[in-house]
């Protein structure tokens, strides 16, 4: 059962080609408020390309994206959309030379946050960054860096959050706390989250709904349990290995 109401994000027959290579092939899906939608698949399946198209960083070859009913390809609408969503990725950093607090202050400005100091204090507390708040970003450990990235992602209280492998460099304790926080915040704020990870246990635990991508196409969708059943497997890890190794199912 997916949440009721109209989706906040709709993707219809979205495709992306890089010269003759088709990275994403006619992908369609929806994301609802109060839902964590897991996007998974082997490397090169098209997950990151889809996220980049949703953010307007890469333009689609064909198909349609609607976020809050608006078109992100139109610059004025894109500006409105991006003010209501946010993104975090392990592979994207924040300015190294700035201090943690300064860095968050810059993003508070970019997102037009009212009372930025109070917001930043709350995020620093929430993401356990108190000890590093006045340290330069370059001195942070990879775990602290990931937490800072997440703090940045929550700076504008986004209604949609796109997370690209957010726990990839976290130790199991912090990763677990982060997952729990995301589940909690999703419930409290009725947030819509699109999530990618290579950690299948994590995907099973966190996702309300899954899209399994392979060679740019959605080959399975449903709750984690439904996807596992569909592939007659024990768990998502097994499904992943079957697909990645191109085993006939």
């Amino acid at each position, binding site marked *: 059962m997916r949440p009721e109401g109209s989706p906040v994000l709709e993707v219809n027959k979205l495709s*992306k080609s*890089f010269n003759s290579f088709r*990275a994403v092939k006619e992908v369609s899906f929806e994301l609802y408020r109060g839902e964590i939608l897991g996007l998974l698949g082997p490397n090169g399946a098209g997950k*990151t*390309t889809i996220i*980049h198209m949703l*953010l*307007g*960083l*890469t*333009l689609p070859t064909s198909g349609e994206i609607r976020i809050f009913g608006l078109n992100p390809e139109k*610059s004025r609408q894109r*500006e*409105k959309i*991006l*003010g209501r969503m*946010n*993104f975090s*990725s392990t*592979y*994207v*950093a*924040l*300015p*190294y*030379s700035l201090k943690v607090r300064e860095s968050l202050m810059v*993003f508070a400005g*970019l*997102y*037009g946050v009212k009372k930025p100091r109070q917001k930043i204090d709350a995020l620093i507390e929430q993401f356990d960054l108190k000890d590093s708040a006045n340290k330069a970003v370059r001195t942070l450990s990879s775990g602290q860096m990931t937490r800072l990235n997440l703090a*940045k992602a929550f700076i504008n209280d986004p209604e949609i959050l796109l997370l690209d492998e957010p726990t990839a460099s976290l130790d199991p304790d912090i990763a677990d706390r982060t997952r729990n926080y995301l589940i909690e915040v999703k419930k409290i704020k009725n947030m819509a989250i699109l999530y990618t990870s290579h950690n299948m246990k994590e995907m099973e635990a966190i996702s309300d709904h899954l899209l399994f991508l392979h060679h740019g196409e959605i080959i399975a969708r449903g709750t984690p349990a439904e996807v596992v059943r569909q592939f007659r497997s024990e768990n998502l890890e097994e499904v992943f290995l079957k697909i990645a190794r191109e085993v006939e199912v």
Partner: protein
Amino acid sequence: MSFRRISAMFLRHTYLYRHSFTRLIEIVYWPLLDLLLWGFVSVYITKLTSEGQTAPNFLAIFLGALILWDILFRSQQGISVSFLEEVWARNFLNLFVSPLTIGEYIVSLMLVSLFKVVVVFLVSSLLAWLLYSFNLFIIGIYLLPFMINLIILGWSIGLLTTAFILRFGQQAEVLAWGIAFLFQPVSAVFYPLSVLPDFLQVAARFVPASYVFEGMRAVIMGQSFPAGYLVRAMTLNLIYLILVLLFFFRMFKAVRVKGLLVHMGE
């Protein structure tokens, strides 16, 4: 000492040149520019001596030219190096997934550039006065339009460089440090345009900075300033800025189509 290890390291660096045309060009770029610049300065001084002319105030001409050239250079660096800092910090994507528009980003880079120019100008003018008793303000009322023209040219060069870095990635980074100097010989910074060979004089007519430096020398040497120079410099500058902005926006769209924006900083 292992010859194999030494040759492995030699190979490591030569591979870079095999894969990057810009690095290859860079080997000869700086010596060539130095040769051109100092060659023309020498021609200028030799010409003055052989013709028995009274030597102009070289201190004022060279220091004034140096300070004004730095305005152009810092203005360009304020754009391209500030952009590169986001790329190096892998922060570029974070900016463009925020509501920040590309237009707002460009304006912010221009402000950074302006800030750098003001600091450089104040520090170098003060030092020139303290160390060499050279007062740049002898240029008088023309100083401001000279500076505005150089700043705008610096912005155009900076945005052009940035557009190339967006499109071609790190291998184009070298342009951020060197492209402004490409305009130096034809800008007649340290010598009059008449020193240049005819074909370079024709090229110089299309470089707004050449009018600024010719004007500066005229004012320092007590001659009347040809106001038409300022009009020509400003007209060219506005045309170039508009063309560069159009090119930048076109390039920005092209990198989004090609999916290259997400590879910035990799």
